[in-house]
């Protein structure tokens, strides 16, 4: 596990502590024989790190193996590994793309963007403004003219955002 994530042994142990805390009745403290345990989305979303995050459900869903938000410990570690400080920009971009891709069609289309915006601002913008922002944003970032953002578009855009690395980061 050390080879596969950006965490040290100690951090993984701490993560396991957190994971155990989430569902003490489900998760055994002893993890030597790798039990097949999954913690449902509703419990994970209540972590203080995620509780106020507007994209909490999407984050958890994108990292769960079954796509429904049930996280095994592996997925859990994976999630915080990607969101850690050490993860490279490319990896972060891939998962950010997944998170913003609400309908999981491998494109960020207008609906996805609208959902993103609504979560970002929550009643700060009028519906017309949201639509306007969506259109303009897609227009700006879309390079191939299919009116939705493919990963290539997204990555190209993210590569020009210097703050992305520091904001797409959760300290655990």
């Amino acid at each position, binding site marked *: 596990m050390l*080879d596969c994530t950006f965490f040290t*042994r100690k951090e993984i142990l701490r993560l396991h502590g957190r994971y155990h805390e989430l569902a003490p009745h489900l998760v055994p403290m002893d993890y030597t024989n790798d039990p097949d345990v999954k913690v449902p989305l509703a419990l994970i979303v209540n972590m203080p790190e995620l509780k106020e995050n507007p994209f909490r459900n999407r984050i958890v869903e994108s990292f769960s193996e079954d796509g429904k938000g049930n996280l095994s410990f592996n997925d859990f570690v994976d999630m915080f590994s990607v969101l850690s400080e050490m993860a490279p920009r490319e990896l972060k971009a891939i998962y950010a793309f997944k998170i913003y891709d609400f309908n999981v069609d491998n494109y960020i289309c207008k609906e996805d963007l609208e959902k993103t915006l609504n979560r970002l601002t929550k009643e*700060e913008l009028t519906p017309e403004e949201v639509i306007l922002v969506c259109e303009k944003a897609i227009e700006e970032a879309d390079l191939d003219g299919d009116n939705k953002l493919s990963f290539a578009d997204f990555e190209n*855009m993210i590569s020009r*955002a210097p*703050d992305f690395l520091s904001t797409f980061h959760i300290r655990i």
Partner: protein
Amino acid sequence: MDGRVSFDADPVIDFESPADEDGVHDSFSQLIQEQCHDLHDVIEMTPLDLEEDSRDDVECLEADSDAPQQTDHLIGERWSSDTLKVLSSMPSRTIGRSRGAIISQYCNRTMQLRRRRQSRPSIQHFPRSARPSIRGYGVETDAAGFEEEENKRDRLVNNLQNLSDSDRVRMLRAMPLSLSEKKELRMLVLNKAEHSVSQNQIPCCSQLKYYIIIALRHGWYGWLSFLSSLQLWQTALKCVGGRFGTGVLSYFIFLRTLLFFNVFLFLVTGLLLVVPQAITHPDQDQNITVRSSWGLEVLTGAGYFSHSLLYYGYYNNQTLQTGHSCSASGNGTSCSSGLSYNMPLVYFFTIGAAFFITCIILVYSMSKSFGQSFRIDKSKGLLAIKVFSSWDFKVIKKSSVRLQRANIGTQLKELVAEVNRQEQKFPVLQRLFRLFIHMLAWIMCLGSTLACVLAVYYFSEHMHGDLRNRTQAASSDPLLKEASLLAVPVVVSSINLLLPGFFNVVAWMEKYDSPSMLNYISISRNLLLKVSVLGVLCYHWLGRVATDPQSLGLECWESFVGQELYRFLLMDFIFMLLDTFFGEFLWRVFSQKALKRKRKPVFDIARNVLELIYGQTLAWLGVLFSPLLPAVQIIKLLFLFYMKKVSLKMNCQASGKPWRACQMTTIFITLLCFPAFLGATVCVTYTMWSITPSAGCGPFRGLKNMFQAGKRWVHRLAAVNPDLHWLASAHSYLVENPLFLFLCAGIFLIMIYFHSQVVDGQRKIIELLQEQIENEGEDKKFLITRLQHIHERKRRVTPRPVKGASEVHTHTLSHTHTHTHAHTLSHAHTHTHTHTHTHTHSHTHTHTHTHTHTHTLSHTHTHTHTHTLSHTHTHTHTHTHSLTHTHTHTHTHTHTHTHTHTHTHTHTLSHTHTHTLTHTHTHTHTHTHTHTHTLTHTHTHTHTHTHTHT
């Protein structure tokens, strides 16, 4: 060896360097290729495609409507399946995809397949999968698909295995796969590796090797864990970041960085200077009993402290010996037993090395930070970037989340408003007024800075004279004398405290539009103030005190300067405390109680960071004069961290201003490096080089300057050991000869110049490439609409029997509207069928043209029927020109081909089209020419310009 041979079938095996992206990329190229195919059927499988027929019917109905509809097609998502197919094979969807994305898609597909397997779907879930067109892609049955995935994984494992250990770990970590997948992969790789190793080597030996490797690895992990446990204030930082966001967090991280610098400095000086000096008993135990009130001594650093390890004056110029018997031998060299420790030399080199290493660390972190924050141009895609990268995932406090929402909302609103309205022009009068205000503000700021600097200058002079009088009178109260030492630090610190407030008021008066501009202005003003004050102080110390220490009755002016710096550092700290208490706590209480405001004050990051930089400059300046000053600075920073944290939690709220944390961090590090560190280095070097150290104390007593310590040592070495004579001459040639230094500096400057030129060139290339990307995008958009058009038209005219006539077309001279229709139709037909033939069209026109069919689907067909029409028009002549041009070149330049096609349409269709279409046409036109010829580029460019205007 076996393992390597077995991979020879794989074209790319050697991964010599981890940075060799090409190699890695190539090794995955097969995977990528298959992924492209997958993409095909992913698109085929979309529900969009399933309703293709019905939708296309609707399109046919709509296609008859008027011209603006055309542009709507661009926006609308109603692509036909053919168009989608073409889209999916576009380079941006396939080749340009990064390796990571491909792998992740592979993973997704594996997962999907597994899920499908688990749920055992009926075959009618994929009614299309049996279609002949995609049968070859291997999705017909789950089993086959699964097998294919297994193959892919094997390949991946092989690829991974070929990498070295550290590369493999790096790759694994950066792979966007789920952890369990990664673990499996790793197990597979390791198993394979074990196999190949155990086949080749003697088991006993390898066993031992494994044990050693495992032990080493454990040790390494232990070390890493230890390092990470050094991550100071992990939870505190998390808490701050969660409540106040990245901006405030950057202040604390900066504070931590400074702390590490000081710890480093302290360790170096402490281990190499203080400890050796402390364990040998100094010969001058004068036991000065100037016991005034102890409290004041802590503040001034004088009295008892002045003869302690804290200051330069305490250190002696002996060569310390490890053997006890020889510790008190006069000038050191007589005792040869044991290790000798030449104090002056060590003092000199310790300070030098500490500065050098600090410089390297600073420059390194600065360049790293620059690389991260100042990416290429930032003009394009602002809105999208804002949407996707502005949410701070760290923030976990409810009120801060709300604030962040509001913040992002207003920023987006502003951006949208900016996009919508053009640059609003202020009337001349108003602009003049604003200019006047700015001028006034700058004059006020500069004036006040100048006044402060003059005040410090004259005040320090006055205090200097005062001190001189006191020492000469020798009768005054020692307490008063000590207290008077504090006057200058107090004045300077209060200037540092009060003037930024004044600057803020001035900036508020100026009413800057953008907050970032405000930040920069405030930073530059504060910086100017601090630098000039420090400059005056340096002059005071090095110019007045150091040149004439006798008049002050100083035995050791270095210690005096050290004391001064200590006082300044301490005063700075005390004033920071006061500022925190009055400026933050009392102001909060006042504004909440008296003004009944709900808002708490906002933490001023820029000012606080500048104060940190100021303190650090003092510490660097003082290391030479008082080697333990870093320790004082460490204590100060530790206190400050906790105090600021508590104060922040109690008194402040998250800022509503946007704070570009990344860029600001870069700027702070740059400021720390450039005026602060560089200034300190210059001062210290000047002191070492050209000021005579005091004769009565310190390690350099009796020397003309500190620099001579090295020289003397070299000469002594040469005297003792004649073999080393060359060292002395080398020393005198290299170090003392200014020519050599100038040469070094010149080479250095030239290197910097070259590097900056290279960077500049790269920036230009990046700009060009960016432009090219944009143009490609335009091309693509254009081509796709064309394709869509053709498709639609084909739908509409399907009843007409033209399917067979796709090979060779002979045209009659009469070109009518309907005829062009028929023509495009047939071409659309060939296009959907095959795209391999190279067939030539000969037209019975005045102009004859040969057409080459290109291989990709996206190439729409080239037609020059327009020529008959264009004869009447003047500007189409330019087109004939460009056409022939590309024809003489290669057939890969498809864009020009299509542009001729467009032109046909502009003329055959209604006039309302003309504008938009010709517009896109010009785009493609310029694009191709940048590709082919730069010489002709300028020419055609002007040409097209006129064209657009018409």
